[in-house]
């Protein structure tokens, strides 16, 4: 009974906050609505599915990520404070039809598919089994994830940076003094 109440609160909260992301008038509010959605799902995973480590990981990562996202939202997007109504959508009706159709198909599949019987009980410490798997039988996943994260760091810096060393020192890096970031700013 208690589990059911927690699940209903988390599920309704997660979906309602997810819908609110695309309904509110302000970018900052949309970001925090998405954060609420993630926290609700993180709590559900944490409390109901026994995944304490992964649940806490989701919540902590999402808090940091959404704070960064709020900065980006206010930097790039119009109307960050939500003082006027805003609508930045195209083909709303088509998108709504596609998403309702997808949800209907998935819900039908969920209730029609004969799921296998429940397996064994979870181990006493799921985090330990995850760690043992990542450092043992699933080492390849760990290696790939590490490489992907490293490549992401490099790619994000390369994409986001404006002036690289080749812009400043010339294609063959032989220019004596670096160009000033703003031309004619300091007389160079």
């Amino acid at each position, binding site marked *: 009974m208690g589990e059911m109440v927690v699940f209903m609160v988390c599920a309704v909260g997660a979906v309602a906050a997810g819908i609110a992301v695309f309904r509110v008038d302000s970018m900052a509010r949309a970001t925090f609505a998405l954060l609420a959605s993630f926290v609700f799902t993180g709590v559900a995973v944490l409390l109901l599915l026994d995944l304490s480590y992964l649940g806490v990981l989701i919540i902590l990562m999402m808090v940091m990520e959404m704070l960064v996202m709020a900065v980006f939202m206010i930097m790039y997007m119009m109307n960050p404070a939500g003082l006027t109504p805003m609508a930045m959508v195209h083909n709303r009706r088509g998108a709504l039809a596609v998403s309702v159709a997808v949800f209907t198909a998935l819900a039908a599949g969920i209730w029609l598919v004969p799921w296998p019987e429940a*397996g064994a009980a979870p181990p006493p410490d799921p985090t330990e089994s*995850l760690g043992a798997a990542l450092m043992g039988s699933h080492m390849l996943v760990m290696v790939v994830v590490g490489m992907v994260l490293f490549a992401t760091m490099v790619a994000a810096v390369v994409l986001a940076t404006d002036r690289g060393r080749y812009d400043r020192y010339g294609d063959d890096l032989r220019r004596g003094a670096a160009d000033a970031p703003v031309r004619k700013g300091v007389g160079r």
Partner: protein
Amino acid sequence: MSLELFLLLAAALLAVGLYGALSQQGVVMIMMGLELMVNAVIVAAAAFWFHLSADRPDGQVLVLVAITAMAVEMAVGFAVATAIFRARDVDMVDSAADLRD
């Protein structure tokens, strides 16, 4: 708590995220839709692990991969948004429609 209810939650999150990714015009808003869809994958994978194969760690590893995918999507998405904004003052996908060519 049954598996079906968790999968229903995942399906609802996926549908909401899909609506956002299809309908929004802002680059960052589309990324929010994608995040919601990855979140649905996390919920579904965790529920499958708990209800069907809790004695094996594969489901947990899948959740970890989905979390990583979410972080990577966010970082590269922001970097691409920064690059295209710097190059062309564009922050709406409709203004960058020529990228499909």
